[in-house]
């Protein structure tokens, strides 16, 4: 059975040049694939190419088995939602949402009934008679989603829908996205540079690397547990990256860094990087453990964790992430015990 969206060997243009040379991906109906990538990595260009808003350099895009690569945007069954919701300012909210139904020549009364139903599903039926310009940010997103769902798309493309929102509205729109997913059988692609958005909305995550290649899609939890490569791990943005070297101790590979050694099964000897999440290590004040003693040179508090810069006797530095309640202060001598790490070759 063919996937709802099947992209094969797609070349994506950045202006006049090919920015992403060969992308392949499939998304089944009802699934949401998050494409995670740094700013400027071509996420939006990928979506615009899929939607037909810019030409593909090469490759094939199929929707429900139908090749749509050369078709106009309106013929593809793919709805694209811009980062900022684009509502038609001359129409009311109801007319905006009924727009896809009206252009399909559905009777006005039936179009309005369905539009109201969709607005209710996304909990914005209370603003049905308002002008689009009178809505708040979260309402605009919900209305744009309701309108997209009224088009009954086979594929729904979401271009960083949460990136410009403040935290309160963000949670609101995440809920709307989940409601939209539940209400639609569409194959959805969400592009973002925010892991929390992926975790909240997506069923699978893929990443765009520096070379323009997509990583194999994985569930959010599987990807966090075992990112396939260092570049992906760094893109996820939740790991401390500890630089060191993998050495063989008999038949066992060990990763050595300024804070000690970590078991590194299957790692290749040589310069390496260990990726460690904040809950995967412990920072002990004092020198009672069998581990090198480090000095804390800086502490940076973030919302959910603390970043500590540590230095050994030789002056070598590292940054570790630990839980936000840690009492460790600058100038204290600490020992770091790593319980779990992902080891990647690298410098």
């Amino acid at each position, binding site marked *: 059975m063919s996937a709802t969206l099947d992209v094969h060997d797609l070349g994506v243009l950045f202006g006049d040049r090919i920015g992403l040379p060969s992308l392949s991906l499939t998304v089944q109906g009802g699934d949401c694939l998050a494409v995670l990538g740094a700013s400027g990595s071509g996420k939006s260009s990928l979506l615009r190419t899929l939607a037909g808003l810019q030409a593909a350099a090469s490759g094939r895009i199929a929707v429900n088995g139908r090749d749509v690569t050369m078709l106009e*945007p309106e013929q593809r069954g793919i709805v694209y939602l811009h980062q900022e919701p684009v509502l038609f300012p*001359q129409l009311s909210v109801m007319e905006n949402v009924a*727009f896809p139904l009206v252009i399909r020549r559905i009777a006005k009364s039936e179009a309005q009934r369905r539009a109201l139903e969709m607005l209710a599903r996304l909990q914005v039926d209370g603003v049905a008679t308002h002008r689009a310009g009178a809505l708040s940010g979260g309402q605009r997103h919900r209305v744009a989603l309701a*309108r997209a769902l009224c088009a009954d798309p086979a594929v729904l493309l979401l271009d960083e829908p949460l990136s410009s929102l403040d935290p309160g509205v963000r949670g609101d729109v995440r809920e709307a996205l989940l409601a939209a997913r539940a209400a639609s059988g569409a194959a959805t692609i969400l592009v973002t540079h925010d892991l929390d958005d992926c975790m909240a909305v997506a069923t699978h995550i893929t990443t765009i690397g520096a070379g323009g290649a997509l990583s194999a899609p994985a569930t959010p939890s599987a990807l966090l547990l075992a990112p396939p490569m260092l570049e992906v791990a760094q893109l996820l943005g939740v790991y401390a990256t500890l630089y060191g070297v993998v050495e063989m101790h008999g038949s066992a590979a060990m990763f050595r860094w300024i804070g000690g050694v970590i078991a590194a099964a299957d790692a290749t000897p040589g310069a390496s990087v260990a990726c460690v999440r904040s809950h995967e290590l412990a920072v002990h004040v004092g020198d009672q453990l069998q581990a090198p003693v480090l000095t804390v040179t800086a502490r940076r508090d973030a919302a959910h964790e603390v970043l500590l810069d540590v230095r050994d006797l030789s002056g070598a530095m590292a940054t570790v992430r630990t839980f936000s309640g840690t009492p460790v202060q600058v100038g204290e001598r600490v020992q770091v015990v790593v319980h779990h790490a992902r080891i990647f070759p690298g410098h």
Partner: protein
Amino acid sequence: MRSRESLLRSLSFVALLLFATAPLLMLIVTSLSRGWFYPAVLPPSLDASGWRDLVNDPARRVALTNSLLLGVGTAIVATLLALPLGRAAALSTRAVRRTVALLAFAAVALPPVALGVGLQLSVLSLGLGGTLMGVFLAHMVPALGYLTLVFLGVFTRWDTRLEEAAATLGADGVMRWRLVLLPLLRRPIADAMALGFLVSWAQVALTLLVGGGAVRTLPLEVLAMLQAGQDQHAATGALALAIPALLVLAVSRTAARDTAAVAA
């Protein structure tokens, strides 16, 4: 200090009011009076014969009809041409945009006599010298220039995401124009048509040079009456020239008020 500023503001306002309304008031009074000469402060009698003659005199009626035909025709055709031209240029490369803007500006900025001589030669070579069609083509040149600049400005600030959203929701090109573009363009279109009409309506030099005196329009009649010393008739004709301009302005403003928004 504050009172001096206030006085200055009041004086400026009165001066502006006088400059804007005094000629119009003078025209109104002159058009309704006969035999009003210096040093009489007020006209000796009121008389509407100037208006009657404007409607009844066959030559003036033809001139009025020609002016209306040329104005409406120029407004419609220039808008129909300038809208897609301005849009295509605005959405094109910077070089194309600048070239189109330069050409449009040249049509507007060239002295009417210089433009008229060039146009006269072109229109003569087409066999349209001294015809209404020839004059219409001549009026189209500055009108198209003005209107292209108007639409170039509109579409340079245009939010193309509206059309993208409509397209991916399933609207084809015709639907996008009908349901998204045209409703949002009501105000610029009204403004452009008003401008196109007024460019033609007030045109003297091009009409004279290309029409060769065979095509009579209201501005030419007014000039002729003025030269002949028919002040009352000249004032009536001049008012008749001003009224549509004021009406067009009012209609264009109403259309603007009714337009919900211009995407930008």
